[in-house]
């Protein structure tokens, strides 16, 4: 295995001397929508200012899965890109293959260890070496709500599961859709993340999703979490299956639905529709997870193209971690900076709250990788869990069976 990677690395070195000029970076990423790409352009211009060219290699689709396929083909053919946008376990897997460059020198010089939260470092370091540069932290346990509907029905921001259910009932009685939801596996899992955290608390979450403890996975608490998913299912409209998340967000924006459980990127949709945080829409943590933050983080991993980190790779990593880029990028993207010492001046109400929450959660040990977004367990396990969660949510089997299936899924794929 290692041998193959060495060979490809050697081939890459040869390719690097011919096709890629020494001073250019070729970046594989999937940020192709207006805001994201504009944000990335900030990085590009920064590098160009230093005389480093940017060769753009965007491949969108499936939240980066398409790009990962392309990456595999590129590495196998001995022609890997210089830097690649990556998530969670993918980084560790590639680092395990010995394919990623060691960024410890830059990290040491700039003190990354002190400013990047511990929980995030687990995905940026391998064997004590920094192998990737984190760009942002998305937190996924948000609820987005239409303020007008809540005000009209006299609903206060729910802080417990029971309050939440009561609120849902109220909305249902008014004839509106309580929860806007898109029935795609990753969205079902995003909701499940929050529900499990709320049902069993952080210890339970960690044992089940991060440690993959079979006893916890098969426990009654897990069954309770699935039961709560069924409650949520009963407050979703009939037409949810296959819906894109942003169409679900549109339901909240247009006042057809009251709540949506979705990561912080949903904010962009509200802002784009000229809605203001706290006046038109509300953002709050999923009831029962006020202290916790489940996160996923985009990072750029550098592919080893020789023994040392390329000069341009080092410059790219430094630029990514610079406070000015972290602020500029995340204001646009809706996420929060990956380092906790960035000023929140440029951020709006939801952004400020997100930054404060992240810092608090990081300090109190309440920051956990999101299972739904590949930051709790490897891709094989994650997708196997998706299968169970989605099947249960779509009524293929009851909660008791779901718990059994979850245990089997983990056994096969661990």
């Amino acid at each position, binding site marked *: 295995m290692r041998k193959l990677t060495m060979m490809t690395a050697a081939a890459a070195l040869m390719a690097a001397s011919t096709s890629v000029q020494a001073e250019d970076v070729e970046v594989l990423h999937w940020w192709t929508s207006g805001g994201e790409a504009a944000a990335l352009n900030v990085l590009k211009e920064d590098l160009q200012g230093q005389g480093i060219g940017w060769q753009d290699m965007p491949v969108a689709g499936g939240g980066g899965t398409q790009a990962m396929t392309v990456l595999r083909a590129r590495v196998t053919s001995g022609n890997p890109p210089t830097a690649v946008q990556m998530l969670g376990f993918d980084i560790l897997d590639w680092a395990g293959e010995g394919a990623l460059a060691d960024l410890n020198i830059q990290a040491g010089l700039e003190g990354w260890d002190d400013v990047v939260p511990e929980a995030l470092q687990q995905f940026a370091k391998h064997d004590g070496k920094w192998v990737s540069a984190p760009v942002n932290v998305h937190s996924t346990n948000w609820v987005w709500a239409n303020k007008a509907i809540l005000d009209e029905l006299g609903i206060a921001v729910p802080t417990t599961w029971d309050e939440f259910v009561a609120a849902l009932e109220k909305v249902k009685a008014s004839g509106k859709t309580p929860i806007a939801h898109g029935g795609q596996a990753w969205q079902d899992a995003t909701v499940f993340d929050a529900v499990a955290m709320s049902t069993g608390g952080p210890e339970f979450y960690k044992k089940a999703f991060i440690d993959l403890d079979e006893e916890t996975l098969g426990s009654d608490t897990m069954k309770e979490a699935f039961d709560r998913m069924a409650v949520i299912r009963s407050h979703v409209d009939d037409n949810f299956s296959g819906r894109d998340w942003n169409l679900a967000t549109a339901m909240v924006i247009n006042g057809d639905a009251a709540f949506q459980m979705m990561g912080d990127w949903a904010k962009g949709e509200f802002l784009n529709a000229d809605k203001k945080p706290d006046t038109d829409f509300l953002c709050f943590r999923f009831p029962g997870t006020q202290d916790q933050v489940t996160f996923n983080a985009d990072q750029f991993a550098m592919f080893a193209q020789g023994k040392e980190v390329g000069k341009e790779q080092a410059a790219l990593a430094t630029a990514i971690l610079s406070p000015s880029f972290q602020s500029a990028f995340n204001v646009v993207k809706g996420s929060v900076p990956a380092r906790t010492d960035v000023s929140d001046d440029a951020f709006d109400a939801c952004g400020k709250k997100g930054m404060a929450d992240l810092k608090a959660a990081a300090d109190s040990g309440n920051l956990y990788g999101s299972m739904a977004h590949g930051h709790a367990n490897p891709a094989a396990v994650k997708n196997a869990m998706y299968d169970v969660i989605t099947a249960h949510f779509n009524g293929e089997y009851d909660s008791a069976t779901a718990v059994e299936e979850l245990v089997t899924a983990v056994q096969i*794929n661990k």
Partner: protein
Amino acid sequence: MSISETANPRGSVVDRLRDALPKLVLSPTVAIVAIFVYGFIFFTLYLSFTDSRILPSFGWVGWKNFENLFRIRAWDTAVWNLVIFGSLYIVVCCVLGLLLAILLDQRIRAEGFIRTIYLYPMALSFIVTGVAWKWFLDPGIGIEAVVQGWGWTSFEFNWIKDREMAIYTIVIAAVWQTSGFVMAMFLAGLRGIDSEMMKAAQIDGASTFALYRRIVIPQLRPAFMSAFVVLAHMAIKSYDLVIALTGGGPGTATELPATFMYSYTFTRNQMGIGAASAVIMLMTIAAIIVPYLWSELREKK
């Protein structure tokens, strides 16, 4: 058929080279197919017995990948879906294609224009038409909403949201794409039929229906065969279609072997299991296609 034996058998090097020329011309293709088709098939076969995860790896694990494959529910679903989808798709395309061809063969005005309309979906990939189809089949904004808007409020068309029915919406979209192509094949077949024979049968007083059943359709056998190869190949490779329309959902209800294989090999980093599913898929294809090719090619002699 062959005429190569007419060449001078006892010739110089030039003559021998000339004799070998046809084979030489064919040899690059043979080499390419040997490596890039059969070589890769053997490579995949080998991978299916290894512990490959994110990249090919060569640790031997025996039948473990196959054992795991058959423990995965989604694989059963995928295989069954291919059976349902494949057979329905091929049958509906053939029937519809034949019907359209017969209709178009009645001295229609603007035939060329209509034909182009029937044929054009073949030119589009599902990356292009996927979103339109998805909207279309979505009960909230698509056909159902539109018809209900017209006043028929009890109208329901929510198959794409229904676990049991979703696979049929895939058939509808797939048929939309290729039935025109099949129509063209049958139309070409119809145009090739000897009209004298038809006239004779008509004089004998055969009804139109009997005419088609007894004389026309049997003569379309080669067209059926070509259509079958094209359709079978499309059915097996249907990947974009499913991804664009349902992404394999609701749940795993519209998973097909092609999407399963892709997801295990690339998304889930289980290349071994992905390779095992590819092997099973290829064996199934071979079981269907090889006898067909055999019978077709033997008959030609």
